[in-house]
């Protein structure tokens, strides 16, 4: 610590206000924040319910920003991963209910290195670990700190947007309305594209602010939750194949009869470690039952978020036969067969929430009246097929012990889970070296982890469907990359609080000590403690090669697997 240049100020929650991340930042004045607090949506909030150091004014000043849009500007795009919600201050917004496909997608990925930039890593990578250039200056002038700029907030301009949306179903949102809360609160992709209906001003609130206000203002929480349920229900039904033949009026009738159910605990990661200590039979019994094998099929269940385990009775226990994630349906074959063939087939499997699951329940009576008669015959299950589709363990592509392992350890959460075939892995560590070469000589995963059936699930970030690591981050440093949905960390805004590392159920985030180029650790001026940063796999999002680990394996032993694709997973596990 002899060199004072290594003593810096530890980054804080309030260091990087949301407005300062804009390319052309417009500092917020107290008057602007006061006007926001007068909005009907915030009016009922009692400041006395908030902690002194986290008042509604502080939250909005730090986590809110003013955005101006011209008529036709795209505010959010379907499929992008967002971390903020919007309130219309003036003008209007237009929600496009239909899918615009790739017409408005294709944002250029400017962060990816070119060939020369990639090659330069050969000599530019520091020799020492975790080297950074940390300065004390916070982004009072963000144009000098391009790392802070929120590139996603740069306006999205699409030519002839009016032509593109012609004939599409839209909903107008006047001043005072809130939108974008589904992606912000559920860590999922935007469900619709929203454009400015006229020249508009919006208050954009990042999700940390929404979270804090919801925590202390019950009226606001109730309002946002109701909106979240209403919006997500309709958008989910619209995305589901069996409802695509329905017109708007019928879909609304179905939506009105649909129940929004939640099973398990949203913050399931808190009990994950304890759960791992129990036996398999105990674990499955503790999981909340959504629907029971042998019961009358009173409706179908659509998984909206989270995960569910499909199991069947096997001797004195339950055998896991598959798992369901977002967008998958349970019970349709039984309900449809009973309606078509006038039979009384009960549920063939038990459905349980793994951790937590948000499900939509559509009653059988509604399906029989509104949905099944409109479905083409080809989409109804045939008798023999229904039995096969409901399956038996014979049809499973994944061996039962592997299936149990993945579901119980909740590796099914991963969209880029690192699986290593230990019967092919020669422990050469080419994967680790490749990872280090593409990350300033710092490997971002450990070739270590639990093994089942000869396959290791290594300690590498899985880029989860439900990234619980993001929940507690006070600054939003850990976030989803808007274009690809990868979970990445903004090193500049990470304050080293380790909340994400502690929340990750899979121990895939490491806390590392930042060092100066000469190898000495940085220390916080106030506490004299080393400056820590969270570090993890970013799936080589800035490399032209894609994941270097998988490309570097000479023995085809390593793969980054999207666990939602059970068929691909089964094929890979059974390669010969």
């Amino acid at each position, binding site marked *: 610590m002899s060199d004072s240049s290594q003593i810096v100020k530890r980054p804080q929650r309030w260091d990087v206000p949301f407005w300062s991340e804009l390319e052309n930042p417009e500092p917020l004045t107290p008057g602007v924040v006061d006007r926001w607090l007068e909005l009907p949506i915030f009016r009922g909030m009692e400041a006395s319910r908030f902690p002194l150091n986290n008042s509604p004014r502080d939250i909005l000043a730090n986590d809110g920003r003013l955005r101006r849009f011209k008529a036709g500007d795209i505010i959010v795009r379907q499929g992008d991963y967002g971390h903020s919600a919007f309130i219309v201050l003036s003008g209007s917004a237009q929600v496009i209910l239909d899918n615009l496909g790739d017409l408005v997608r294709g944002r250029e990925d400017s962060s990816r*290195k070119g*060939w020369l930039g*990639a*090659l330069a*890593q*050969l000599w530019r990578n520091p020799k020492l670990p975790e080297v950074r250039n940390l300065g004390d200056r916070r982004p009072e002038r963000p144009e000098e700190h391009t790392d802070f700029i929120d590139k996603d907030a740069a306006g999205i301009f699409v030519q002839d947007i009016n032509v593109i949306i012609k004939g599409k179903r839209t909903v107008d949102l006047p001043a005072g309305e809130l939108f974008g809360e589904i992606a912000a609160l559920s860590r999922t992709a935007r469900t619709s594209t929203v454009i400015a209906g006229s020249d508009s001003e919006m208050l954009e609130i990042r999700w940390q602010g929404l979270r804090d206000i919801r925590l202390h203002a019950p009226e606001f929480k109730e309002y946002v939750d109701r909106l979240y349920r209403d919006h997500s229900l309709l958008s989910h039904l619209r995305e589901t194949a069996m409802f695509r033949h329905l017109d708007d009026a019928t879909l609304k009738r179905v939506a009105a009869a649909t129940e929004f159910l939640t099973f398990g605990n949203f913050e399931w990661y808190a009990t994950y470690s304890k759960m791992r200590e129990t036996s398999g039979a105990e674990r499955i019994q503790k999981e909340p039952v959504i629907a029971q094998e042998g019961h009358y099929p009173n409706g179908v269940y659509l998984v909206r978020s989270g995960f569910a385990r499909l199991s069947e009775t096997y001797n004195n226990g339950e055998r896991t036969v598959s798992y369901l994630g977002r967008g998958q349906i349970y019970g349709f074959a039984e309900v449809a067969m009973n309606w078509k063939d006038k039979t009384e087939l009960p549920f063939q499997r038990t459905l349980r929430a793994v951790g937590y699951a948000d499900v939509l329940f559509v009653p059988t009576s509604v399906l029989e009246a509104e949905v099944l008669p409109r479905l083409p015959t080809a989409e109804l299950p045939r008798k023999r097929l229904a039995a096969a589709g409901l399956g038996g363990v014979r049809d499973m592509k994944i061996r039962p012990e592997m299936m149990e392992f993945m579901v119980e350890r909740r590796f099914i959460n991963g969209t880029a889970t690192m699986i290593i075939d*230990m*019967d*092919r*892995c*020669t*422990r*050469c*560590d*080419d994967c680790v*070296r*490749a990872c280090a*070469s*593409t990350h300033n000589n710092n490997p971002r995963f*450990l*070739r*270590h982890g639990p*093994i089942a059936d*000869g396959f*290791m699930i290594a300690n590498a970030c899985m880029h989860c469907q439900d990234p619980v690591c993001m929940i507690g981050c006070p600054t939003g440093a850990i976030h989803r990359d808007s274009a690809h949905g990868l979970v990445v960390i903004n090193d500049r805004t990470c304050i080293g609080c380790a909340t994400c590392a502690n929340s990750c159920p899979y121990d895939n985030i490491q806390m590392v000590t930042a060092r100066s180029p000469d190898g000495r650790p940085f220390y916080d001026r106030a506490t004299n403690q080393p400056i820590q940063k969270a570090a993890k796999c970013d799936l080589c999002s800035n*490399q*032209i*090669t894609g994941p*270097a680990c*998988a*490309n*570097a*394996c*000479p*023995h*085809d*032993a390593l793969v980054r697997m999207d666990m939602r694709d059970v068929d691909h997973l089964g094929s890979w596990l059974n*390669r*010969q």
Partner: protein
Amino acid sequence: MNFTTRRRLGCFLFAATAGLAWVLDFSLRVRLRRVELLTGLTLMVVILLLTLFNARKKLPFLPLLRASTWMQIHIYVGLFSCVLFGLHTGWRIPRGAFEFALALLFYLVSASGVVGLAISRWLPSRLTVQGENVIFERIPALRAAVRREVEEMVVESVAKSQSSTIADFYEARLRNYFSRQRFLVYHLVGYGKPRHELLSEAQSLDRYLNADERGILGRIVEKIQAKDDLDLQAARQGLLKGWLFVHIPLTYSMILMALVHGILGWKLS
């Protein structure tokens, strides 16, 4: 493409290319053409292509095909280089000292490659099922930790029983065992007799001990097994990594000698 199809395709391409090379060589020879220069140059190019695999490993940030694709190319082109070498030498062992040394290097590089490929396919599954999977670089630290724990147990046994039976056994049979890697060759060939003997010896002490000591001995026996598992992992992972330290330096030596051989051949022809 699954592994079986890939293997069949690789074998087919190798056989076809090798057959073509043989036919070409034969047809040129019957026309009394000198083919040594042609086969020699081709062999040199092929060997340089094979060494590019190692260069590819150093450049993981460039999109230069997957390493597994390079590996397949390396295997089959390596086999093809053996055929070319045979055609170049006329399937005879060279007589001159320099040529013989060069040929010997080629044989050693090829043999080390084949052995390396064989152990890369044979050992991993055996590593997976025997002992805990540990990272190679951590093994010395884990081994030291095991030794510390056993020494604490030995001290505990003396303190609890005022008897030196376990301590004596430790001095006579275990100190050396826990101090470093043991039974390397046995672990490499998968022969478990030394482990079995040591465990039997330790367990035979049981009849001379009281209840406290028996408990401690039981824990020591577990540590003997844990240490043996670490040694097994170290031996086999060491072999999986170590064969490249033979294959690669020999390759570079061979390339240097081959260049000299080429220059000499060209000057003298």
